[in-house]
C-alpha cells in the first residue's frame, strides 16, 4: 500500500535576550556551571518571577516575521512535573493564551501553517559524568519560544526545509542565534502515516529533541519506515513519545500515551496577564529588518540574480548584509554577487570564518569596480580580495604592494606590438591576406610579454591599428 506521510513540528528556539526570562541573570551560553543563576532561576523558597519585556517583544517580532496574529492579551500557566533540571517542578509556559496565533511559511509553493507561538522558560541541564550526574542551572530560565505547526508537512525534506527557513528568519530578525549544535534551536517532530488519498490522520508518534537538519531528516525517514512496517505487519502504531538515537539512526520508545504526564496546567498567579496593544505590536513590526523572502525577491527581480545565486547569498545573514552594503556603495549587483559567491566565500570557507567579514565593504567595492573598468585584471581582483582577507590591508595598499594596477603605458604597448609583429612575419602575411583569425595569436603573444600590465582592450585596439598600418 502507498502511504502519505504527515508531519507536524514543535520548534524550540532560545531567544537571545540580554537577561533571562524571569530574573536579571545574564543569558549566555557556555559559562562555568551554575555561575549564571540566582534565587529566582534556581527556585529558592520565596522567590518570584518578573517577566522580561524584551522576551515578550522578541516573541512578537518572531510572530510578525512568521505571519502570526498577535494576541491582545497573553497569559502564562504553570506546567507541573518533577524533573531534576526543572527547579520549581513546574515550567512557566503558555497553554491557554499564547502571544502569537496562526501564521505560516511557504516551502516550494506549499503553505505550512503555524498553530501558534508561545513563550516559556528553558530548563537547566543534566551533566552526566561516569556514574554521577551534576546539575547546571545556567540554562534554567533562558527564554524559549515554541513554534507549533499544523500537521502540514509531507516529507522529511519538507520538514527540514521548513526548520531551515524558520531558523533563517529568526536569525535575520535577531531574536535567536540559531545554533543547533549548541541547542539554541531544536525541535520535536510528530509523525503519522495514512493510506494515500485518505483524509483520516493515522496515529502519531512524537520524536523529541532533534538538533540538526540531518537528524530531523534521518529520524523522520526512519520513523516513517518503522510505521509502515508496523502497519504492514497488520499491527497498530502506538501513540507514544520516542527518542532518536543518532548513533544507530533509530528511534526508541520513551513513554506511551497511558504513561503520559498530566501536567495539571493552571494560570500562574504570580504573572498577571500582559496586554499587547495594536500600537505596541505595530511598533515592533516597523522595527523588523527586511525578511529573507523579501530580499530574495529583490535580488532576483530588481538585481537580476538567478534564484540559485540569490539563495547562496541569502544563506548567511552577514553575507547578505555585506552584499546589500556593497550595492549601496555603488557596486554593480551581478558583478558584486559573482565576486562574493566566488572569491570572498572561498576565503570565508577556507578560513572557517564565522564572525564579521574581515574585508571592509568599501575596499571590496573599490577592487570590483576597478576590475569592471578594466584597471585590474580578473586574476588581479581575486588576488586583491584574498590578500585583503588574509592581511587585513585596505584596497589601495594591496593594489600597490601587489602591483595589480594595469599600467597604461601606451608607448610600451606599441613597442611590444612592433617587436611581436617583427618576429612573426608569417602570421603577419596571413593577416594581410585577409585572414583576421591570427589576431588572437598576436593578442596572446603581446599579453605574454606585457604580463597584465595593459588591459586586453588597449592591446587589442593598438594591435589592430598596427596590423592595419603594417
Amino acid at each position, binding site marked *: 500500500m502507498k502511504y502519505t506521510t504527515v508531519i507536524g513540528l514543535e520548534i524550540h528556539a532560545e531567544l537571545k535576550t540580554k537577561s533571562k526570562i524571569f530574573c536579571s541573570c545574564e543569558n549566555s551560553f557556555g559559562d562555568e556551571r551554575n555561575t549564571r543563576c540566582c*534565587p529566582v532561576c534556581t*527556585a*529558592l523558597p*520565596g*522567590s*518570584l518571577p518578573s517577566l522580561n519585556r524584551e522576551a515578550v517583544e522578541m516573541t512578537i517580532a518572531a510572530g510578525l516575521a512568521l505571519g502570526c496574529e498577535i494576541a491582545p492579551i497573553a497569559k502564562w500557566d504553570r506546567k507541573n512535573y518533577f524533573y531534576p533540571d526543572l*527547579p520549581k517542578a513546574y515550567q512557566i509556559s503558555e497553554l491557554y493564551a499564547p502571544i502569537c496565533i496562526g501564521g505560516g511559511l511557504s516551502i516550494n509553493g506549499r503553505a505550512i501553517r503555524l498553530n501558534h507561538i508561545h513563550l516559556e522558560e528553558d530548563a537547566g541541564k543534566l551533566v552526566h559524568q561516569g556514574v554521577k550526574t551534576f546539575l547546571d542551572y545556567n540554562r534554567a530560565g533562558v527564554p524559549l519560544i515554541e513554534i507549533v505547526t499544523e500537521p502540514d508537512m509531507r516529507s522529511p525534506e519538507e520538514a527540514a526545509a521548513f526548520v531551515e527557513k524558520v531558523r533563517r528568519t529568526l536569525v535575520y530578525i535577531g531574536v535567536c542565534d540559531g545554533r543547533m549544535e549548541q541547542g539554541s534551536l531544536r525541535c520535536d517532530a510528530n509523525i503519522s502515516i495514512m493510506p494515500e488519498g485518505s483524509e483520516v490522520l493515522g496515529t502519531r508518534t512524537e520524536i523529541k529533541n532533534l538538533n540538526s537538519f540531518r537528524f530531523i531528516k534521518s529520524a523522520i525517514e526512519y520513523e516513517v519506515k518503522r510505521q509502515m512496517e508496523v502497519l504492514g505487519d497488520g499491527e497498530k502504531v502506538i501513540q507514544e513519545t520516542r527518542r532518536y538515537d543518532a548513533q544507530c539512526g533509530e528511534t526508541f520508545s520513551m513513554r506511551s500515551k497511558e504513561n503520559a504526564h*498530566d501536567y*495539571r496546567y493552571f494560570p500562574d498567579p504570580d504573572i498577571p496577564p500582559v496586554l499587547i496593544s495594536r500600537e505596541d505590536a505595530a511598533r515592533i513590526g516597523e522595527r523588523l529588518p527586511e525578511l529573507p523572502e523579501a530580499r530574495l525577491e529583490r535580488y532576483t527581480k530588481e538585481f537580476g540574480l538567478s534564484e540559485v545565486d540569490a539563495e547562496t547569498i541569502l544563506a548567511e545573514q552577514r553575507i547578505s548584509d555585506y552584499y546589500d552594503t556593497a550595492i549601496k556603495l555603488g557596486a554593480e549587483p551581478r558583478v558584486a554577487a559573482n565576486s562574493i559567491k566566488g572569491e570572498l566565500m572561498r576565503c570565508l570557507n577556507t578560513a572557517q570564518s564565522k564572525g564579521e567579514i574581515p574585508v571592509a565593504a568599501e575596499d571590496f567595492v573599490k577592487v570590483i569596480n576597478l576590475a569592471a573598468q578594466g584597471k585590474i585584471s580578473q586574476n588581479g581582483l581575486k588576488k586583491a580580495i584574498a590578500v585583503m582577507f588574509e592581511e587585513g590591508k585596505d584596497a589601495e595598499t594591496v593594489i600597490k604592494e601587489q602591483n595589480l594596477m594595469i599600467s597604461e603605458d601606451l608607448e610600451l604597448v606599441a613597442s611590444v606590438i612592433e617587436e611581436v609583429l617583427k618576429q612573426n612575419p608569417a602570421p603577419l602575411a596571413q593577416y594581410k591576406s585577409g585572414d583576421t583569425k591570427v589576431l588572437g595569436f598576436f593578442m596572446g603573444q603581446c599579453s605574454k610579454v606585457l604580463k597584465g600590465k595593459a588591459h586586453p582592450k588597449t592591446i587589442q585596439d593598438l594591435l589592430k591599428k598596427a596590423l592595419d598600418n603594417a
Partner: protein
Amino acid sequence: MTIKELRCALDSREISAAELTKGYLAGIAELNPQIGAYLHVNEELALSMAEKAQKRIDAGESAPLTGIPIGIKDLLCTTDMPTTCASKLLEGYIPPYDATIISNLRTQDTVLIGKINMDEFAMGSSNMNSGYFPVKNPYDLNRVPGGSSGGSAAAVAANLCAGALGSDTGGSIRQPASFCGVTGLRPTYGLVSRFGCVAFASSLDQVGPLAQSAEDCGIILDAIASYDPKEMTSARERSGRPATDSLKGLKLGLIEELMGSDVEAQTKSAVEAAARWYEAQGAIVERISLPMLKYGVPAYYLISAAEASANLSRFDGVRYGQRSKSYTDYQSIVEKTRGEGFGWEVKRRILLGAYALCSGYYDAYYKKAVQLAHVVREEYRKALEQFDALLSPVSPDVAFRFDNAPTDPAQGYIADICTVSAPLAGLPALSTPCGYNSEGMPIGLMITGKRFDDKFILSLASHYEREFKKIPAEVRA
C-alpha cells in the same frame, strides 16, 4: 507598651535599645518554653542589631521602628537566621537573600528579635500543624492561639515582642489575632511585597502586622509596604482613603451571613456591642446580606490548595532543605524527602490541590472555584459601594482547647467562613479585640475595607481601641 510608647522612651533615652531588647529576650527565655511562640532566637544577633539602632537613635536619626524588637514569622527569608516555615523539610535552611520586607525593616534598623512558630507552610488555623511544637494561647495554655500566624499573635499577646509580622492567606493573621486578643491587619493584596515570603497560595498570600494596637499595626505597615519591582503582583498605584478623625456619618455594614446561628452567642453579642458603639459615635450601621459568602470556604480551599500543590513542588530535596537519608535515585529523593519532610496537613492540601487540577476535574473544581471567587469579589465590590467598611466576627467562636480540636479537617475549614472571603476579593481586613467570653477568652471584631483603604480601616479600629478596655494575658512561668 505600644510601639508608639516605646519610640518615645527610646528617643528620650529613658531606655536604651539594648535594654529594651534584653527585656524582651528575658521574657522569651522565661515564657517561650510554655508558649512555644519562637522557633529561633539569636540573642547575640538581636543585641548587635540593638546596638546599631542605638547609634542611629543617638545621632537623632531614628526611624519609626529603629530599635523596636519585632518578631518575624518563619516563612520570611532572612539571611542571618534559619527560615523553616515550621517544616522539618527546611530544618536549618538559611536563605542567601532577605525578603524585600525584611530589607525594608533593616533599613530602619529594626531589631529582628527572632523567627516565629506557625502552622507548617502557613497551612492551618490552630498552630497544631507546626512541624516542631504547637504554640499555646497566652490567655489559656490549654487552648490554641489560632493559625497560621499563631506564634506571632501569641508573642504579641504575651509581650514577647513589640510587634510581629504574620502572613494571611485565608485568615492567618486575623484569626490568631482574634484568638489572642491582639490587633492584626491583612493588608490589601499587592500592598506588601511577597518577594521572599515562602509561597503558600500566591494569589492570596499577604504579609501583615500583628501588634498591641491598630496604631502600631499602621506603623509596621508603613515600614514594610513598598512597591516591589521583583513582584509582578505588587501594586504601583496604592493610594486609598486616609485615616479618619471622625466616625460621624460613616456607613458601616454588619454582614448578615456572619451573624447567623452558627456563630456562638457571646461572640455575636460582643460584635453587636461593638457595632452599637460605632452607632453611638455617629456612624450609620446597617445589616447587609452577602449571600455568596457561603461559597467562600470551598472556593478558598480549592484555589489555595491548587496553588500550593505547585508552589510546594520545589521542595524536592535536590537543592536545599533536608534530603531523606534513604534514597536510591531521583524519584526516591523526591518521594522520600516529601514523604518524611511534610506534615499531614501539608500533604492533604497538596493532594487536594493536585486533584482539583487534574485533567477531567479541572473544570469541575479549580475552574468553578475561580468563578465563585469572582462572584464573591463582585458581591464585596457592590457592598463597598454602599458602605465605607464592613463589620463581622473574625471567627464563629473563641479559641478552642487542644483536646477539643476538630478531628475532621473539613470541620476545621468551615470555621474559616468569616475570614476567607476578603482574600478572595483582595481586600484589606483587620481583627481588633472587642470582648471576652465568660471564660476570659478574647473575641475579635473584623473590619473589612475597600482596596487600599488599609489606613482608613486601621483608624476605625483605633477609635474603638481607645474606648475598649483590654484585659492583658497573664502567663506565669
